[in-house]
């Protein structure tokens, strides 16, 4: 591919003899990996669909106060369990609260938990993974065994254990989800770092006397970004699912917070009487997770050189 570009450049230069013999900034940007990835991603219809879904929920969350005249706590006992209508787009729940309003505000919570849980897991997982992979020996032994132990628990169970220790709240659920995702990022980064450690440019940097910190920052980290980005995108979806599960079990957000999982748990008894109280929060969770999965799949295809044509 580089050869072709070079030839193209040479042709351009050959056709324009007056032009200076250097590359414009624009032309250099043309080949940047970021732009290339974005271009690939834009061609992927599934990824675009995912992106649109996430943007939709982001808008819903951010503009919730403008989009709906109700507050998420506003109870209206006269209008309880109403079917969807013009006044209440998605109906009302057992306390007469507007379901659309609660879903819109709930989008804030789900996206917030998903984002910060993944960022937390990503930072700690990446650091541990780099230490284990780059320094090897007993550090690797120790960190890898800790990862093994954490991964020996089914993830939701470990989250329950963490919340059982810290107490039930949205913040503690977020911490729990971050903890259970640390080994997933950690292992990924570790294996990537181990393969990069022996690369010639890393050896060259070492030979030049570059310090470990700089090698990690300028050589190892940038080259292990691709799988981390893909895992993080897919991780947002998983984290949102896990937060909803904890909320459903009563271990996450506490009332009256309009968390989607909690909304499902609260409406369980009205399954027969008012199924819409359960359908819409569930569909919202599913759509957001689907959105992140679609983007994640698209990113993987775009970033994985083996998938490129």
């Amino acid at each position, binding site marked *: 591919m580089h050869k072709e570009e070079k030839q193209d450049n040479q042709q351009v230069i050959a056709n324009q003899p007056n032009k200076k013999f250097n590359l414009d900034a624009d032309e250099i940007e043309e080949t940047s990996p970021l732009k290339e990835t974005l271009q690939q991603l834009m061609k992927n219809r599934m990824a675009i669909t995912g992106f649109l879904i996430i943007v939709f929920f982001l808008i819903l969350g951010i503009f919730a106060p403008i989009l709906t005249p109700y507050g998420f706590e506003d109870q209206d006992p006269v209008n309880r369990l109403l079917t969807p209508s013009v006044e209440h787009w998605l109906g009302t729940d057992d306390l007469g609260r507007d379901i659309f309003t609660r879903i819109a505000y709930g989008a804030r919570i789900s996206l917030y938990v998903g984002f910060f849980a993944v960022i937390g897991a990503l930072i700690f997982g990446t650091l541990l993974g780099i230490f284990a992979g780059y320094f090897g020996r007993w550090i690797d032994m120790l960190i890898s*065994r800790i990862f*093994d132990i954490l991964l020996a628990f*089914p993830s939701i169970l470990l989250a329950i*254990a963490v919340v059982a220790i810290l107490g039930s709240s949205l913040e503690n659920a977020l911490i729990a989800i971050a903890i259970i995702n640390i080994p997933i990022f950690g292992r990924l980064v570790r294996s990537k770092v181990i393969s990069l450690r022996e690369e010639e440019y890393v050896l060259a940097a070492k030979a030049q006397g570059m310090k470990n910190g700089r090698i990690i920052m300028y050589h190892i980290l940038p080259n292990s970004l691709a799988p981390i980005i893909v895992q993080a995108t897919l991780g947002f979806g998983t984290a949102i699912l896990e937060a909803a*599960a904890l909320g459903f*079990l009563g271990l996450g957000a506490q009332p009256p917070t309009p968390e989607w999982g909690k909304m*499902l748990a609260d409406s369980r008894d009205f399954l027969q009487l008012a199924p819409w109280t*359960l359908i819409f929060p569930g569909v919202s969770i*599913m759509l957001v*997770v689907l959105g992140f999965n679609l983007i994640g799949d698209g990113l993987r295809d775009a970033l994985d050189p083996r998938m490129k044509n």
Partner: protein
Amino acid sequence: MLAYTSRRLLMLVPVLFGMTVITFSIIHLIPGNPAQTILGETATEEAISNLEETMGLNRNYFIQYTAYVGDLLQGDLGTSLRTKASITTEIGPRLAATMELTFFAMIFAVFIGINAGIISAWKQNSWFDFLAMVFALVGVSMPVFWLALMEQWLFAQELGWLPAYGRQESRNPIDPITHFYVIDSILHMDMKQLITTLKHLVLPSIALGTIPMAIIARMTRSSMLEVMKSDYVRTIRAKGSGQFLVIYKHALKNSIIPVLTVIGLQVGVLLGGAILTETIFSWPGIGRYVYEAINYRDYPVIQSGILVIAFLFVIINLVVDLLYAFIDPRIKY
């Protein structure tokens, strides 16, 4: 094979040690006084010191941990704070219930998942392929508890086809022998009971098995597509073998290893998902046991329940790993 097996078993030691440290810590990492948290804010000083005495919370950590592991090694999982009964006795039938549910969920996931994946690869880019993959994508994005609730609403309440709660009819309880009700009803030679038991299993198994099914289907499809392109498959085709034989006899064998890996990983999803599914379907398994314990702050049950599920997960992963080495002798770790 022997060397690999013993090495794999040796690797289990630090994991099991770490697991017990984590479950042991559940009580000890509670901020403030654990006994106070367990008994609630209104507890008297005397009640707190009594509980500390019975649970041994006033001794130093090392002695407590040694005693904890010593008990575990003797098969003693502690005493429930709520029922005052031995957890080992309480957990037995529940473990059987969970294993029965997980087993049927896995059967559903593997059977439908592999076959859907095969047909998708076989008829690549057909409408079946498209629909199956859209379904698989939606399947992995769906919260298992929501799917369970929707199933209950549609198949139990609206259509009335299948029971929504429990493992058996409360009016006609089964006399447990193994606590695996399917096996028990066969042992009793009770056809009616067997059908009832199976009917109770359908909705929870499908709810629990849907996510693994979707993942297995996607994996089978991509693995199958890769194998179908290989030279040996073309040779078999050239010899005039029928499509069905090519796929099920030859291609499947070589595409199954990555699928097996995924199936092994799904056991964790199933055991974790069991907590949610059992809560919704009032399935008297270990997941529901832990869920109830959380509500009653019955920490010994939370500890032991989590430990038993994690132990089961570790053992199943061990079996899967050993199975690979057996199926594919090229695998050497």
